[in-house]
């Protein structure tokens, strides 16, 4: 390890910019002649659109144009990019999702029209003057009720509000195992709906250059090339070579900025019509109403055990709320990113999972930090903890009894995953230590003496990162490949620009990627610049989500570095008058084996650009691009241990201790990784105790502002004890696994298991997320 190479805890170079207000976000972009968009949004969750009268609004000061759905008929509807084949072999029902509503609105906040005016205030004034004639319809909001007879029907193309019913596993075989099991643990619970809450709201600035015919979209996006591809191929807004998508600094995404939303489609289309740049930045209330939400499952889950506590089989039945339409990757989340993780860290023999994806009159639901895996980890780890309590076993011991042993890898699960490597028991032992498990009973007694209830909970999660081998993704329905690209460009003076198709929106790529390049090529870390986010600069790339940027994006960088070294070797051999086979590369120097004849990579780069004395037939320049398609997912796993104290009088829960031991394989930058773990746990704690997107029966978002939607704050979380037990992945050249989502995946079950453990003493059997004071108090009272 060099001082700033792989494994070094280098402080994030981008942070100075961010914390001193020098970042450059989409909303910071202002163009000459720029206009502003304000969307007219439906206040109703479900209504027919009987007419939209824009006459008065259109005559108001500063108004350039007002468009409604019919005006955009030539623009294709928003798409869902992951096709699902249902249990009957039929394609899923993905009803049309026009960018601006046509004929009907299906959730409160859906865009009905857009006003483009010279100032934002003028646009707002005119938007308020657009007269929309709504024909109110009853709303269907509760996913559990959505498919029942007599419910309001949202889409003609989706009878019974069902998008698809999908299943994984052999039901008959699993049922048979259940019939003969010594013990069956059965739970019913919801996975609460969440609002992503990126610090920077969604924003875009669309421009059209009539001279060149080029469209430029500046957008807070996690994957600018995917935006470009979809907007070209599906919406027909402009051919790819005439559409530039730029995602500058982006202030958080958590999944919500992967998707192709109505606003960017409308602005890109409209900019060429009004011949003016157009800006739109979501207000926070708009973010609540229109960012794709996360989670929202209702699940029944069962675990069959034999008399020794071995897990025999699991049966899971989930209703997943898709919201009013299928968002860009919505269908993959409760299926291939969920059911495939239900084996957890265990050798469970058979698993059957059935998923009903239903439409409701709520904003679409899609991938949110963890996307499917938090829901899976919650199912598995709640079941395991409940089984331990029911059968009188120590929850840590029960887990150990069932862990996939360290010598069983690669391990084929019953749910189509092949785990590459891991040390589940080792992580558990380390976590028990870090959590001070042996002292728990004493701490519990102390709490009891103070009138408080103390509980401890485990979460031995596993997840799949590094999405994904393109062929596998394609065979499961993905509309895209999921490789990544990297371009390492040496300049003649020896410094390096790295162009990556991944996108950093808080992850610290500018630092971590520079470390990889510095490590692999021996170039000083300061001399490596990382460039991402601009489709006209970077090679085509798939962007950042699913904790893929190290395992896939990082591997592409290593491949490009290998190409640089290969070419550099030829140049060095020529200059040093040696045979290529005799040239060794280490620490940035090409050396003739067994001699002190050497050439630094910077000199090689200079020679490549000033090729006066150069190998015959070799191209000048030192600029290499690589595309990397992963061989498999990577499988971060670990054990988190949470300890809570409950005040039975008020129902308040406080997290007293939280220990996390994670296997992320090789750590490129432990400081960044720890930060990702902290942030992930923070969001997991948020889901378990605080956050909840609540709609009322009419489809109005009740928790539509921070007055009612509880974001985790610093004093809601303890100081974490974080440890690592890395087993390098054999399947990628860096040995990395991915760390961006683990905290959010592990924490909800750890916290809720602790809450259940604490409340068991007062007879409470079940409590839902978020475990708010009201709910905890109510549960204690109901149990008394």
């Amino acid at each position: 390890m060099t001082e700033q190479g792989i494994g070094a805890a280098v402080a994030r170079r981008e942070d100075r910019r961010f914390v001193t207000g020098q970042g450059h976000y989409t909303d910071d972009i202002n163009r000459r002649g720029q206009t502003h968009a304000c969307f007219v949004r439906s206040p109703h969750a479900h209504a027919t659109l009987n007419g939209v009268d824009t006459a008065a609004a259109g005559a108001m000061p500063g108004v350039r144009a007002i468009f409604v759905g019919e005006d955009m008929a030539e623009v294709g509807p928003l798409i869902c990019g992951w096709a699902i084949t249902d249990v009957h072999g039929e394609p899923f029902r993905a009803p049309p999702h026009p960018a601006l509503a046509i004929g009907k609105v299906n959730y409160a906040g859906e865009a009905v029209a857009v006003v483009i005016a010279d100032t934002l205030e003028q646009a707002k004034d005119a938007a308020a003057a657009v007269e929309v004639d709504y024909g109110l319809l009853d709303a269907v909001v509760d996913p559990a009720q959505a498919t029942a007879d007599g419910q309001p029907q949202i889409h003609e193309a989706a009878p019974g509000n069902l998008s698809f019913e999908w299943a994984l596993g052999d039901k008959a075989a699993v049922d048979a195992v259940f019939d003969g099991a010594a013990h069956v643990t059965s739970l019913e619970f919801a996975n609460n709906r969440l609002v992503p809450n990126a610090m920077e709201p969604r924003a875009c600035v669309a421009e059209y250059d009539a001279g060149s015919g080029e469209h430029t979209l500046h957008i807070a996006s996690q994957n600018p090339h995917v935006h470009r591809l979809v907007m070209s191929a599906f919406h027909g807004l402009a051919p790819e070579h005439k559409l530039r998508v730029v995602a500058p600094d982006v202030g958080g995404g958590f999944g919500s900025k992967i998707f192709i939303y109505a606003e960017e489609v409308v602005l890109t289309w409209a900019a060429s019509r009004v011949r003016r740049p157009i800006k739109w930045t979501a207000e926070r209330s708009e973010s609540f109403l229109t960012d794709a939400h996360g989670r929202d499952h209702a699940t029944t889950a069962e675990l069959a055990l034999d008399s020794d506590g071995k897990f025999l089989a699991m049966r899971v039945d989930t209703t997943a709320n898709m919201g009013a339409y299928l968002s860009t990757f919505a269908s993959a989340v409760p299926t291939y990113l969920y059911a495939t993780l239900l084996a957890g860290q265990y050798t469970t023999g058979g698993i059957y999972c059935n998923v009903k994806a239903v439409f409701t009159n709520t904003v679409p639901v899609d991938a949110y930090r963890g996307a499917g895996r938090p829901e899976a980890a919650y199912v598995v780890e709640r079941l395991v903890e409940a089984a331990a309590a029911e059968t009188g076993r120590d929850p840590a011991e029960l887990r150990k009894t069932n862990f996939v042993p360290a010598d069983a890898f690669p391990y084929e699960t019953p749910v189509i995953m092949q785990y590459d490597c891991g040390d589940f028991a080792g992580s558990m032992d380390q976590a028990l230590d870090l959590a001070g498990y042996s002292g728990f009973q004493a701490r519990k007694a102390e709490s009891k003496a103070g009138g408080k209830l103390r509980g401890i909970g485990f979460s031995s999660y596993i997840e799949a990162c590094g999405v994904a081998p393109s062929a596998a993704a394609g065979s499961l329905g993905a509309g895209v490949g999921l490789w990544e690209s990297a371009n390492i460009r040496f300049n003649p003076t020896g410094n390096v620009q790295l162009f990556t198709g991944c996108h950093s929106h808080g992850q610290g790529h500018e630092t971590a990627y520079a470390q990889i390049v510095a490590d692999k090529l021996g170039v000083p870390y300061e001399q490596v610049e990382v460039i991402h986010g601009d489709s006209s600069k970077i090679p085509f790339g798939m962007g950042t989500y699913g904790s893929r940027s190290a395992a896939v994006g990082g591997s592409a960088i290593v491949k490009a570095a290998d190409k640089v070294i290969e070419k550099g070797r030829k140049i060095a051999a020529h200059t040093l008058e040696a045979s290529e086979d005799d040239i060794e590369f280490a620490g940035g120097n090409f050396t003739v084996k067994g001699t002190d004849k050497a050439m630094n990579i910077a000199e090689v780069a200079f020679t490549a650009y000033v090729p006066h004395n150069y190998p015959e037939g070799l191209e000048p320049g030192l600029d290499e691009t690589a595309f990397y398609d992963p061989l498999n997912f990577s499988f971060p796993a670990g054990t988190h241990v949470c300890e809570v104290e409950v005040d039975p009088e008020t129902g308040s829960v406080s997290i007293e201790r939280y220990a996390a031991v994670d296997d992320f394989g090789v750590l490129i930058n432990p400081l960044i990784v720890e930060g990702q773990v902290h942030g992930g746990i923070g969001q997991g704690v948020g889901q378990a105790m605080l956050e909840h997107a609540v709609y009322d029966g009419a489809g109005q978002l009740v928790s539509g502002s921070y007055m009612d939607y509880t974001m985790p704050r610093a004093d809601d979380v303890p100081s974490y004890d974080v440890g690592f037990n890395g087993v390098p992945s054999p399947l990628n050249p860096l040995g990395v696994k991915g760390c961006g989502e683990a905290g959010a995946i592990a924490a909800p079950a750890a916290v809720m298991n602790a809450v259940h453990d604490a409340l068991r003493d007062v007879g409470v059997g079940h409590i839902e997320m978020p475990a708010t004071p009201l709910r905890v108090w109510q549960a204690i009272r109901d149990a008394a």
Partner: protein
Amino acid sequence: MYNFEYKKAGSVDEAAGIVGADDEAKLLAGGMTYIPTLKQRLAAPTTVVDLNGVGGLDGISADGNGVTVGAMARHAAVAASAEVAAAIPALADLASHIGDPQVRNRGTIGGSIANNDPAADYPAALVGLGATVQTNKRAVAADDFFTGLFETALGQDEIVTSVSFPRAGKAAYMKFPNPASRYAIVGVFVAQAADGVRVAVTGAGPCVFRVAEMEAALAASWSADAVAGIGISADGLNEDIHASAEYRAHLVTVMAKRAVAKAG
């Protein structure tokens, strides 16, 4: 925001003159409530009269009778005031738990009580201590000042200039915060006030109220146990996704008990 005239008043009289002449003119203090209201286009005033330029409205002073807090005194100033801490520490403590640092650095006592949010903290202190609100026109007893949900005794051209809190014996405030907004789901101020024991509850109902049964019990015996068994009815209490009326009623007893314990 809709368009409006902005006037920075130089004196209370000037400000009163503007709002007195125009029903649609509105005062601005810390702006913590009013600016978001404007930004969300929930209000369309003709004129916004800024009180931040009026000198002498933010003083905090103490004498043998008690503490007087100027209408424009920020929550942070009250929380940090040595005079308040010495005379009525429970008041400084209450101010220190309002909102977050930004809110405490901008928000004012005048704005808070004029707004009379049902979940605001200050109303509990005013009623709990038997304070007097001084306006540009008159003095109003706290018991008469808070009249209902977001309603006060203030007239259109009436401006709060200060609040006087009489010294108390033992006193404390306990707040059970709304997890999201951190306003009070229930806040209870208990005090051996100048005119007898007072128990004032905010957050639970549409407007701050006193609990006579608890006051009597505490007057007889100042102890947490004295109120531990006194429940209040859930009828008419607030209900939202964070707390049912029943839960609020329960919390009133728990917070009252804890406030008495905290007061010593």
